[in-house]
């Protein structure tokens, strides 16, 4: 029996290690290739796994040809603003939907639910036309625009607010808090884990978004990391070491944030899934 268990454990590790290798291999290959010369990367006989000399030329070259500092800033500004808007506005609306009674509540909430069922591509042309009409293409505002409010966030945080005990509000009322104060001072701090989860969710998905920045910010000074990569790929088509260097430059910030805050990331995703 004990032997059987031991064997099972080894088998589990084998399967998991194999999977883990498959998860990491593309990233390893990305980094290795980014330090090779084109000749090394296309040498088949012998096939070269590790670059003979770790050359930084590819990084210097893509850094010279693209303004990465601007790309980092654009991406960061978009993420930060989207997180701020989504968390702030969703928390307000979510609290009202969860705890206040007012005419139209059910109707408005059904609009929130309906928005979540519709594929986002259906909004894109009109949103683009709006940004264009405002003369705001190629700006940070354009990147933020579709993320100004979040139906998903409203729904998610409503679930968190509904899980809080009713007595808290009654106590706050007796202490003389009005509804706004009860919301901001008492209830909001209690759904912190929800706010963090929504923030991570929003940051991650805006970082990964490709189509919207590609459409609305066509100038290379207004691109995000993702949309710039798409451009770089069509420009450097065959120079894979440089493409890989650009990819590494584009993904390391998020990867670092993930490694540092992995517990929050994973718990955030897990709770948001559990709440829906």
């Amino acid at each position, binding site marked *: 029996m004990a032997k059987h268990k031991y064997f099972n454990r080894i088998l589990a590790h084998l399967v998991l290690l194999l999977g883990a290798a498959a998860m990491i291999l593309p990233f390893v290959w990305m980094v290795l290739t980014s330090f090779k010369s084109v000749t090394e990367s296309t040498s088949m006989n012998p096939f070269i796994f590790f670059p003979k000399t770790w050359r930084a030329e590819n990084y210097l070259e893509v850094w010279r040809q693209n303004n990465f500092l601007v790309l980092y800033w654009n991406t960061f500004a978009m993420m930060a603003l989207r997180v701020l808007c989504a968390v702030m506005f969703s928390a307000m609306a979510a609290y009202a939907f969860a705890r206040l009674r007012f005419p139209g509540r059910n109707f*408005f909430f059904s609009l929130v639910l309906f928005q979540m069922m519709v594929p986002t*591509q259906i*909004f894109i042309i*009109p949103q683009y036309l709006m940004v264009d009409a405002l003369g705001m293409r190629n700006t940070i505002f354009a990147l933020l625009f579709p993320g100004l*409010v979040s139906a998903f966030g409203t729904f998610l945080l409503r679930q968190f607010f509904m899980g809080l005990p009713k007595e808290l509000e009654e106590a706050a009322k007796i202490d003389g808090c009005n509804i706004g104060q009860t919301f901001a001072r008492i209830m909001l701090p209690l759904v912190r884990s929800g706010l963090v989860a929504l923030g991570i969710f929003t940051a991650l998905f805006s970082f990964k978004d490709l189509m919207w920045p590609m459409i609305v910010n066509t100038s290379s000074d207004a691109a995000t990391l*993702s949309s710039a990569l798409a451009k770089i790929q069509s420009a450097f088509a065959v120079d894979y070491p440089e*493409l890989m260097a650009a990819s590494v430059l584009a993904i390391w910030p*998020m990867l670092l944030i*993930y490694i540092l805050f992995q517990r929050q990331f994973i718990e955030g995703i*897990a709770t948001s899934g559990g709440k829906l």
Partner: protein
Amino acid sequence: MNHTVKRKIGAKTWNEWSWGWFLIAPTMIGLIVLNFIPIIQTAYLSFFKSGDFGRGNIYIGWENYRKLIHDPQVWHAVGNTLLYTLLVVPVSIAIAMLVAVLLNGKLAGRSLYRTIYFIPMVAAPAAVTMVWRWMYNQHYGLINHGLSKLGLPAVNWTTDPQVAMLSIAVIGIWSVIGYNMVLLLAGLQEIPKDFYEASDIDGASRVRQFFVITLPLVSPTLFFVVVTTIIQAMQVFDVIYMMIDVSNPAYDHTVSLVYLFYNNSFKYSNKGYGSAVVMVLLALIMIITFFQMRAQKKWVNYM
């Protein structure tokens, strides 16, 4: 006296109403401007032939939809989108479930595994697709090199019309496993341990335990994972866009509805036709959602 009490309650209610409206105002105004008006506008645009950037629209009635029905590319895109979904959803969820079950015990290195499996989820699809494309490279790719070591012939992973969709699905599966695993693992941890202990005493095998205890009890989470994965898969764009350009011989066999929408709306600037294409996607997702909701009643056990 009675009158003033009534007035007082009225003021209190009024206060709550105004706070409610005030708090939802930013979100509702945002949703109406950013989402609800655009839905109507997209539906409206689908009856127009549009020139550059939406200027000079000409009303053409159902012409876009008539064109759409006779457009082989639209049918390809519908087929490809469904095929991609059919490949990614079962495979990614099965693997995610396997990993989640393995990680649900007291295995050493559990949180390290969890961290690693989630990594593809935090990388930008644009970057990830580029490295996969490089690994898929016909002449210099890592994968074909591996095949040749095993004495197998090289495969044109990204240009062979028969294979390209599979290559794309592999990237899709690889990217989403970690996300689904984290959700499923959270669901598994909700299952009371006593259930397993009781069935251990009864001498049930691990496999039987999985089907009799785990699967029914995790079914609400599983349902959620299935629904979100289907909806994500139906909207596939990034990977295909980064891997297959319009001149690729496998384009017809890989183009998805969203990619077709993007090309028509923004590459060829025919936003009317693009709108019609995205309406097809909306219809498809609505139909699938309807069936999911019906299926939910059949196989999901809410405790």
